[in-house]
Each structure stands twice: as C-alpha cells, then as structure tokens.
C-alpha cells in the first residue's frame, strides 16, 4: 500500500458500488446514473459550468453564462457553514512562501488563473509593459490587508521577491524570477506600484507569477530578519488570502476560517477544513460515510464513478492541460531511427489502453498538451492503431525478425526496458508490452518502488523509455523538455530530443509576450514534435472532483489543473443550511 501524493490504489475493490443500489431499494434516493457524470471533454472552458442547485438547464449552459450562473449561486447562498474537503496527498506541514510553501487560500497572488489558464488580476490591479518588453510596472490594489490588519503594499512584494532570490534561501523556483539565469530586479515605485526590470524579455513571467506555489506574497513586517527555514511564522502563518489559518494537525486535518476583510469579498463559508487521506479505500469510505463534502483530485473515471455512487453527490470530470505520455530515449540506439518510434505508435491501440486505465477513451490525448489550453493544436500527425502497418514499416527499414521473434538490425535488438512506478504507469506497461510483442518488439518491465528511485534513473539520461507528463499551465515549459540545451544529467530533456527548428521556435515562444503571436509558434512546435514521434501522448490528465451537491452549493467547478487549489472560487462556495 503506497501513500504518495498522486499515487493511488487501482481497481474497483472494496465496499463500494452496492451502496447506491441499497439506498435506492430502501427508497432513500435515486441510483447513480452514468449520465449524471458531466462529461466536459471540450476542455476547461466548457468545464466551467454546472453550478449545482440551478437546475439541469442552467447546468448545461455554455461557458458564456458562467458569471451569471455563479452570481445566481451567490445570491442563493447563505453565509456560514463548514466545508470538509479531502485531498489524496499530505498537506504542507508549514507555510512560508519564501521557501516555496504556500497555497491559494491563506496567501494571495498577483494574478490568478482563469479557467483557460489565462492570468486575471488579483493583487495586481493592472500592469504595463515597456516597449522593449523588459520593464513591467505593476499597480497593486489599494485595499488588500494581512490577516493581522496591516496593509499589503509594494514593499511586501519587493521583500518577497528579493528574499526568494537570495542564494542561501531554499526557494525552489528561483528560475521563475529569472531570465536565462539572471535575476529580474524588483523595486517599489510607491506604496502600491512595483517595477520589475528584466534582463531580457520573458513570455512566461506573468504565468509563473500566477502559479500559487511559485509566487505568493509574504508579509515583510513579520518575516524580515527571520530565517525562513525555522521562523515561528511557519506554523502560524499570516497571509492575505480569503481564509485565515486556524490550525493544522499533520496527517489529520487543516482548518481555515473566513477572513472577513478580504479585499475581494469575504467567503461565504465559516470554515474550510481539508483532510489529507492518502489511501483510496479510506477516502472512499469516508466519503460514503458522509464525512466528506468534496473529494478532490481523483485521477481516473473508474474511481470517480465509485465515489459518485454515493447518494447526493455529483461527479465532475475535469480534463487538464497536462498530458501523460510514453516517451522513448531518442539517443538510445534502439530508438534513434524515427521509423521505430512511429511503428511503436502504430502498434499501440491507445483508445483501448486509455479505456482500460482511465476508464473512458474520450480522454485519449493527441498532442503534448490538453485540449483546454490556449496553445493546444489538435492538427498534429496522428498515428492510428495499425499493427500491420507497424510491421511493414519495420520490415522496410530493415528490422528483420530474429531470435525469439524479436526484430533486429545491424546487431541491435528491438528490445528495451521500462520502469513504471505510479499506478497508472504500472497499468499501462503490460498493455504496451503485449501490443509491442505482437509486432516483434520487446519491452522489459522493471517496476520501481517510488518516485525518488525512478527520478535517479531518468536523470542519468540512461532510461530507455519512460512515462512523463507535460504541461502545467505555460507552454514555455516545453523549452525545458524539448530544447537541445536541456539534456540530462542537468536538464529535463530526458528523451534527448534534438531539432534545431524546434529549438529556435521554443526560444521565440519564450520571448514573444503576445498570446496571439505565440499560438502559431506552439502550434508548429507540437506539429514538429509529433511529426517525429518524439513522444507518444496517452491520456489527458484528469483532476476530478466529486461534490456532495445535496449539501454544498455555489460550486462553480474547480479549474482542472495541478494548481494545488481545491476550489477556483473559494469565496463563492457555501454550505446548504
């Protein structure tokens, strides 16, 4: 039994399923209907609907009506109540943005992602960029305050920025506050204006600053002169977000309470309690026993439907921009020939694989990012399932069937190793093995116990094939994964992909800040990467939420992203009284 962050027990075992039917038999409520599962394959834009309690008509309205629906929910909502949410991994033990330990409830960010991952104003009311794109002037809201009543000013932002960049401060995302390894300078122009001076233009800057785990503003008046590793602030954090920290019992729960003076409007809830329950069966039991109002971040349809069988609950299946992929090491003699990679793609019945592993083939991925992202390009080369074609491609390229029915060419056998570690990887691996065996390719499976182990193998650059995922929120991330300057052991281009046109486009994309001009750049990058079959997309990562809609209202859909936030609009959720 594993208890890692995203790891989960697979398989429909345990005391579930029957409950829904039993309750129906007892006349207590309707059985779970698959149609209730709101399928939002269209991505996050369309995903942002279905405010419970508004009736099915409104719930099916298009994304354009979202604000109206949320507004109606707020009007309907009563202040008060305690919401209990479950997450499948342990919480931070301490809170201090200066060392990368923050959230979107206690702390606040300059911007926040909208459902399409476009940054929208939060603490930053507006900003201007200089002609040469190297000076950002950011104007902060006037009425934001810390939970101790002190005003939040530009000096807090500058203090946070400068401390994070100090070499002896263990802030793990320094790269986000730099361009090409050089620090971005921050200074306070006045109490509510911050000026950032960049060594060179950076397209990803605003997106990085929007991710709550990267740049949450820390209070200067409480942290100046403190050691961020050991400060007493860490266990009694004072933030400026919509909720105040109340208490945390490690491994058990965290309690946040409403911050009445929040500049964006106080939340409706009195309390927001989060329970980290790492084991799937335990989480399911707690949900079925009615101890949980909202269960978050289930990664597949199979588990989600198990939860949704509980009476009074509504599942939301939320695709993210993150795509799980199967990738081959381009530097390995086995995969150096693109024909081999393409043949492997043709040999895999990805629809069947995704149906087995995720529970629904709707979520088969086409590209290296999910359909919800603005940079997504669906018109990339697809490799349909066709084992005969795979065989003839290999035959023509001179890979003849040799001993043990394994193909070989010039002394190289078409045999490689894969190290799956997460549950979904362990589920994929034997399927891939079978499909490849059918066309004369051998994949050996060496299961590894945990992330740290697999990371060491991968970072050595010697992993032959691996499962990996991209991207969180910013297409500029592709630079780290596909630019030829990012080779292991230091870089993250673990499949050692190299293409000078892609390199050039990635650099352009990182400097162009106009989204409309960036779109064609990333569209072309996706086309080239998939054209060479540098990676095989498997499924769109899901971030499903199951809500007890009989008890919780105003739930406007969480953004389906790895943002570490439980709710997109935490101030609007309420408990039905």
């Amino acid at each position, binding site marked *: 039994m594993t208890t890692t962050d*995203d790891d989960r027990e697979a398989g429909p075992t345990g005391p579930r399923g029957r409950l829904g039917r039993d309750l129906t038999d007892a006349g207590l409520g309707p059985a779970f209907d698959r149609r209730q599962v709101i399928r939002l394959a269209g991505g996050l834009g369309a995903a942002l609907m279905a405010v419970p309690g508004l009736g099915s008509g409104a719930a099916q309205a298009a994304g354009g009506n979202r604000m109206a629906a949320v507004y109606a929910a707020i009007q309907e909502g009563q202040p008060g109540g305690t919401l209990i949410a479950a997450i499948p991994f342990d919480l931070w033990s301490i809170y201090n943005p200066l060392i990368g330990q923050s959230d979107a409830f206690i702390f606040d960010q300059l911007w926040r992602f909208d459902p399409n991952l476009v940054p929208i104003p939060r603490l930053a009311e507006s900003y201007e960029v200089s002609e040469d794109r190297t000076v950002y002037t950011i104007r902060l809201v006037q009425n934001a305050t810390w939970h101790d009543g002190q005003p939040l000013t530009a000096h807090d932002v500058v203090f946070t920025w400068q401390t994070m960049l100090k070499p002896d401060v263990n802030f793990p995302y320094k790269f986000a506050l730099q361009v090409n390894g050089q620090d971005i300078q921050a200074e306070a122009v006045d109490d509510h204006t911050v000026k950032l001076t960049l060594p060179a233009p950076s397209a990803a800057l605003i997106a990085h600053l929007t991710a709550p785990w990267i740049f949450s503003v820390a209070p200067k008046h409480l942290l100046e002169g403190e050691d961020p590793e050991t400060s007493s602030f860490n266990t009694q954090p004072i933030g400026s977000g919509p909720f105040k920290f109340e208490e945390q019992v490690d491994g058990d729960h965290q309690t946040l309470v409403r911050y009445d003076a929040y500049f964006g409007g106080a939340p409706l809830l009195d309390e927001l309690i989060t329970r980290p329950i790492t084991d799937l069966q335990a989480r399911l*039991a707690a949900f079925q026993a009615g101890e949980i109002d909202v269960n978050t971040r289930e990664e597949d349809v199979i588990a989600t439907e198990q939860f949704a069988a509980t009476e009074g609950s509504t599942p939301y299946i939320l695709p993210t921009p993150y795509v799980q992929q199967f990738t081959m090491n381009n530097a390995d003699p086995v995969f150096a020939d693109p024909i081999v990679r393409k043949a492997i793609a043709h040999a895999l019945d990805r629809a069947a694989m995704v149906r087995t592993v995720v529970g629904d083939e709707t979520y088969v991925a086409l590209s290296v990012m999910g359909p919800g992202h603005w940079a997504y390009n669906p018109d990339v080369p697809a490799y349909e399932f066709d084992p005969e074609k795979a065989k003839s491609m290999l035959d023509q390229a001179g890979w003849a069937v040799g001993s043990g029915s394994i193909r070989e060419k010039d002394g190289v056998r078409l045999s490689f190793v894969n190290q799956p570690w997460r549950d979904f990887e362990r589920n994929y691996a034997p399927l891939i093995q079978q499909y490849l065996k059918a066309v004369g390719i051998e994949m050996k499976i060496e299961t590894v116990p945990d992330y*740290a182990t697999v990371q060491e193998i991968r970072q050595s650059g010697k992993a032959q094939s691996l499962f990996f995922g991209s991207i969180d929120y910013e297409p500029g991330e592709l630079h780290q994964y596909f630019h030829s300057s990012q080779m292991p052991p230091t870089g993250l281009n673990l499949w050692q992909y190299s293409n000078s046109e892609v390199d050039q486009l990635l650099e352009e994309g990182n400097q162009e800040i106009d989204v409309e001009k960036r779109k064609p750049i990333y569209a072309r990058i996706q086309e080239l990467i998939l054209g060479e079959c540098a990676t095989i997309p498997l499924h769109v990562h899901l971030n499903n939420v199951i809500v007890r809609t009989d008890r919780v209202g105003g739930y406007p859909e969480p953004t389906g992203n790895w943002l570490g936030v439980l709710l997109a609009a935490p101030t609007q959720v309420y408990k039905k009284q």
Partner: protein
Amino acid sequence: MEPGVKSLLAAAAMQRLVAIRLLHSLLVLLIVSIGSFALMRYTPGDPVAALIGQQARLMSPEDLAVIRRNLGLDDPVHVQYGLWLRNALQGDLGYSLGLKRPVTGVIAERIGPSFTLIGISLVLSIVLGVSFGVLSAVRRNTAFDHAVTVGSFIGNSMPQVWVGLMLVFLFAIKLRWFPAGGMVTLGSSGGGLGDRLEHLVLPVTTLTLTNLVVWTRYQRASLLEVLGQDYIRVARAKGLGERTVLLRHAWRNSLLSVVTLLGNSFVFLVEGAYIVETIFSWPGLGRLGVEAILKRDYPLVMGVAILSSLFIISGNLLADLAYGALNPRLRSR
C-alpha cells in the same frame, strides 16, 4: 542461606540483568542507526529530487543544486553520519527536510496518536487474550473452548487490511455507528471525549482482533501444558482448592512462556499500526515513517527508525524483566 541474603542476591542478579540488557540495547540502537543511515543514503534518489515530487512541478536543476548544497547533502556520507550522531547524542535529531520542522517535534506530535492505538490495543489483547486462553484451557473440550479455538483460528487467518475495511463497511458505512476515519469529528460539533472514543473503536478493534488471538492461543496451550504436570497433581493431592491450584500454581507458571510473547507483540503492533493508520487515516508514526522514506527525508527516517527500534527493544526488555520476575530460577542465579 538467610532469607535476607537470598533476596539481596536476587536483587543484585536482577540489577545485573537489567544493566547487561541496557548495554545490549544501546549497541543495537547504534547498529540500527548506522544501518538505516547507510541504507537510506545508498537507496537511489535524494530528498531534493523528491521535492519535485509526484506533482512533477517544473523546477530548474540549478535551483535544486543550490538547495542540495545548502542542506549539506554534498558532503561525504560518513561526515554526514558523524554530524547526525553527534547531534543525536545531544538530543537533537535534526530538521525534517520535507516538513521543515525539528524531527523531535514532528515525532512528538505523532507519538500520542500511535501510542494511544498501540497501548489500548496491547492492554486489550493481553487482558482479553489471557482471559480467553485461561477459560478455554480450564473448560477444555467444552463448546466455549471449541468456539475460542475456531474463533482464534479464523482471527489468525484474516489479514488486517481486510478486517479494517470490513469493519468500516459494516459499522461506518452501513450502520453508521462509528466514524470511518480520523481522530475527531471535524468542525464545531466534534472534539469531546466521547467523540474521541468513538473514533478509537474501529481502529483499536482492528488492531486488537488480530493480536488478541495470538495471546489466546499461547495462553491456552501453555496452561494446558502446565496443568498436565506432576506438581499440579501433587498440589491437588495436597487438598488445595481448585482456585488456588489454578491461580497460584498453574497460571503463574504458564505465564512464563506467555510473557515472551510481549517482545513479539510490540513488533507486531508497530507493523500493524501502519496498516491501521492508513485505513483509518490516523495521524500516527507508521504513516509518517513510510511517507518519510518515500520522500527520502533522511533526518525524519532516522528519527522514526530509532524510535521504533527503541520501542521494540523496550518490548523485549520488558519481556526479559517479566520473565526474570516470574522465574525464580533466573532470579537466584
């Protein structure tokens, strides 16, 4: 020999036993610490890589290298161990890399919940197990005895995970008598003593059921063996009451082999606690330890390893002492 001298000698022998055992324990602890330290360091992966974690959040290799250097992870392993040992001897187990708090503080928080579970379960297992065992032996071949034998056989064959999940299904989901997990009801309604006890019922039952049967079987077998001995027949022939024979002569002697179970029981409970803590999302040491290993949180792993060995060593020490106290032959030697 004078009775006074005899008891003095016995006391000295006992002290010597305790002293030797304590010395052994310290040696074992040292070996455990070296073993765990080496094992962790030579396991692939490092804590900074685990920082990226399963979230797979983007970080730059340069930033990670800086953190690795700041944390002293670039130093040679023996230097790191020396530093750890020196601090540990002064009672400082270091800073958890993942939780960013002193290891002693983190462990202190988790000891309470774990020991509550283990302590209650140990007492219940011994009291109930010994009682069932004695009754079963005394009423040998009665319906009660058969029921206990079959019951303990079944109990012994059921995996703890399964027992836990079944109890949750039955008592938390179907009947709604007890909560499915956690230590207290969260929100304004929970937190009282009654509420805490309610949360204890299912995890303690799970942990006790599987442990209890071992005590029952041991006690039954041991008492039956003693009851067949000649001196019991002699005691009965002397005309002693059945109660005196049973309690003073038979049961006391049968305990000699039962107490040795104490050491094993501690190991069993520490293992079992992890499973139970996971099923009932109980914030105990077992879960903390596993989490620490997965995150390569070296100082925390060391802390939990040392504490667990300390616990198991004291279980064995306790068993030894109880054995010494019960066995006159060992006392006078």
